[in-house]
């Protein structure tokens, strides 16, 4: 009988070797029996049976499987795609997660041999390895356990070692691999952990030798997926979960009607769906940040950063306009992008704890200089439409100052550097104070008065403007005037990884303090009489669903 393993209680090494040689010989015979017409296919069918087992394998059967795989690896040149189709498909449907390490090794060796033996098997082999990125469904829940983690490391190290070997023998393999990796990326409807482990593998690829060739595409694909997830989350879902809805009533009115009605229809389902996605996005971002940290340690952050920057320009910045593409001619898209960029900058400068005072002040100085120059070159009265970018610049400056006022009060040199030109801008005929979002303006003026920032603050006549027609006009259809992308950081884990005092925050903390990565020593206490760590309620409003 073809491939039965005789049961010897104890085998000498020599016997084992002989037995292996014997099996290898039989494998060859079985393979060559198929093309010839007169030969019986029995041994071949048995061979397929060994690979395509269905039940749990015993020790001896595992040993047989291992030796058979080795025998096949040694005889790959005999494997013919047309004649041995059943065998080939059986091999490529195997999952490394199901076997002990030594069988895994044999399987990985066979896959590498197949990949390099013939062009036809290259894509199949790479695809099989990509399939092994994620464990079979039954194993997904065990990934968190210690033995599950060990198993994961075992399998993944073999998968990635196999990639490396294949690309050594077939130098163009990474180019094909990357297409497969991007194609097979799980959609957002897959199970949370499957996506996570897949992304983990992508990042591993990026940091490895193959990443030298295809790392850019990996990162780009990842950013695209993050954006997809982001867009998938309804603002509604977050509101219900994390906020007192009352706070947001005002902004909800402004929200794009299409979005709102769509969300209302799907109701509760969307809410829970949205939350699971938010959680997934959160986890993915943590993974990504960890990866960036490891990049920094490896001294390759600059290279990765370049890719991310490019990707940011292509995808993230244009995400806002995505719904309105058809409405906007090209020039206004560019305008929108500039406004979005300013909003991103403002939000980042005011929110990120890890930025140095020097960096913030340099960036602010540049913003102020730009606005001043704009004032000098543009004459005329208030015109929210014509000077959109200018107004978003002014709003950004004030917004940042709302959060960082203390710094500028404490350091006289900075005060001197920034305030006179800023005063000039604010007093200009373009009158930004009347156009920018009243909540921002109001808070800014209040704080600067407290800090007696301006020498003649009385000249700013603040007549309690509510959101005026003017301020609506400059934001345009998309309400960019109220768009501050990092406010607040809604993703719990991410927030924590940014927060220096992360340990203090536990799950049961109040929702707001979990959300905020705001510096705690700001002058923000005046906002609606809430405690100082809270977001100013009327500034908080990133009213767009995309603004996570």
């Amino acid at each position, binding site marked *: 009988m073809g491939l039965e393993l005789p049961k010897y209680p104890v085998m000498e090494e020599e016997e084992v070797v002989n037995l292996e040689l014997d099996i290898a010989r039989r494998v060859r015979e079985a393979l060559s029996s198929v093309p010839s017409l007169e030969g019986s296919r029995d041994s071949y069918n048995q061979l397929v049976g060994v690979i395509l087992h269905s039940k749990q394998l015993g020790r001896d059967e595992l040993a047989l499987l291992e030796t058979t795989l080795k025998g096949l690896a040694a005889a790959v040149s005999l494997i013919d795609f047309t004649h041995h189709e059943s065998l080939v498909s059986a091999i490529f449907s195997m999952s490394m997660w199901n076997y002990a390490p030594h069988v895994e090794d044999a399987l990985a060796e066979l896959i590498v041999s197949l990949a390099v033996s*013939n062009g036809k098997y290259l894509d199949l082999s790479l695809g099989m390895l990509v399939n092994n990125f994620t464990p079979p469904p039954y194993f997904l829940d065990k990934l968190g356990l210690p033995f599950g983690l060990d198993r994961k490391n075992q399998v993944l190290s073999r998968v990635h070692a196999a990639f490396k070997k294949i690309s050594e023998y077939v*130098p*163009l393999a990474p180019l*094909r691999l990357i297409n497969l990796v991007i194609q097979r990326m799980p959609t957002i409807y897959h199970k949370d952990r499957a996506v996570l482990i897949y992304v983990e593998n992508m990042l591993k690829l990026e940091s490895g030798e193959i990443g030298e060739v295809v790392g850019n595409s990996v990162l780009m694909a990842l950013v695209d997926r993050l954006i997809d997830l982001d867009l998938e989350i309804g603002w509604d879902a977050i509101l219900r979960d994390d906020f007192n809805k009352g706070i947001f009533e005002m902004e909800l009115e402004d929200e794009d009607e299409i979005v709102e009605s769509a969300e209302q229809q799907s109701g509760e389902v969307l809410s829970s769906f949205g939350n699971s996605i938010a959680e997934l996005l959160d986890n993915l971002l943590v993974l990504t940040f960890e990866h960036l940290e490891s990049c920094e340690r490896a001294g390759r952050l600059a290279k990765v950063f370049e890719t991310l920057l490019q990707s940011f320009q292509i995808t993230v910045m244009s995400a806002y306009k995505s719904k309105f593409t058809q409405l906007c001619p090209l020039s206004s898209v560019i305008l929108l992008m500039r406004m979005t960029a300013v909003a991103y900058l403002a939000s980042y400068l005011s929110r990120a704890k890890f930025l140095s005072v020097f960096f913030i002040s340099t960036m602010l100085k540049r913003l102020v200089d730009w606005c001043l120059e704009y004032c000098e070159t543009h004459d005329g009265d208030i015109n929210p439409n014509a000077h959109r970018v200018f107004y978003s610049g002014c709003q950004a400056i004030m917004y940042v100052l709302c959060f960082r006022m203390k710094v500028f009060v404490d350091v006289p040199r900075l005060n001197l550097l920034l305030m006179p030109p800023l005063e000039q801008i604010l007093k200009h005929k373009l009158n930004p104070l009347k156009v920018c979002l009243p909540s921002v303006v109001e808070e800014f003026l209040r704080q600067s008065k407290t800090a007696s920032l301006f020498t003649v603050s009385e000249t700013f006549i603040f007549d309690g403007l509510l959101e005026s027609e003017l301020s609506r006009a400059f934001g345009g259809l998309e309400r960019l005037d109220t768009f501050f992308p990092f406010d607040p950081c809604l993703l719990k884990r991410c927030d924590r990884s940014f927060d220096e005092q992360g340990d203090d925050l536990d799950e049961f903390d109040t929702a707001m303090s979990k959300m905020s990565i705001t510096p705690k020593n700001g002058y923000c206490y005046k906002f609606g009489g809430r405690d100082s760590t809270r977001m100013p309620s009327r500034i908080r409003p990133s009213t767009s669903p995309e603004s996570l």
Partner: protein
Amino acid sequence: MDGLSEAEANLVVYVHPSKSKNVPQAILRELSSLLFKFNETFDGVLLAYDVNILDRQAKILSGIHPYLGLRLKAQLLLFSPKPDMLLEGKVVKLSQESIHVVILGFSSAIITAENIRQEFKYKIKDGEEMFASRSHKRHVIKVGTMIRFLVKSVDEEILHITGSLMEAHTGSIRWLDKKSEETSEFDRSAMKSRDREWQEDKTVDEGATPLSNSNHIKKSKKRRIAED
């Protein structure tokens, strides 16, 4: 090595209007996307290009997308492996069943056992796998050896080549070159001595002239010239 050729191409590149800000870059990107892939128009793989943009002003093609059409003249370096060509590559993996080779650092080739001539015997020496010639002790193929082999077939899509070492003029390049050098050396020295003999014959012929006194001087002069 066969399979490499230079070509002069007249191309038209269609640039998307969104790239009109930096057209030269868009052109280079477009051409770079062809690198290391088999291209039917070129009937080979593009390895390198040197481009010369002819148009100063591009034509806008009418249609759904108004692309800009730009004429180029490009110097291309192509790699087009065909059956029966002699290619050279580096051995990256070797086992009893096969030799794996990488050509020009990007294309892979395999030579299976049945395509390796009987002269070569597989053996393991000091833990290193190799194919060693039975007739020439110095002729050895192992991982890292540059070999010359004959192309049997080419999978153009993934640039995978199957090769053969059946012919006598295939094998380790170092050994083959040395051998041909030796033969040519042998040829040359054989030629030289034949030359000399011929010269000497000549002088002898000349020496047969009655002026035997000047004969000696003449002869040595001739010999000097011959030896130079």
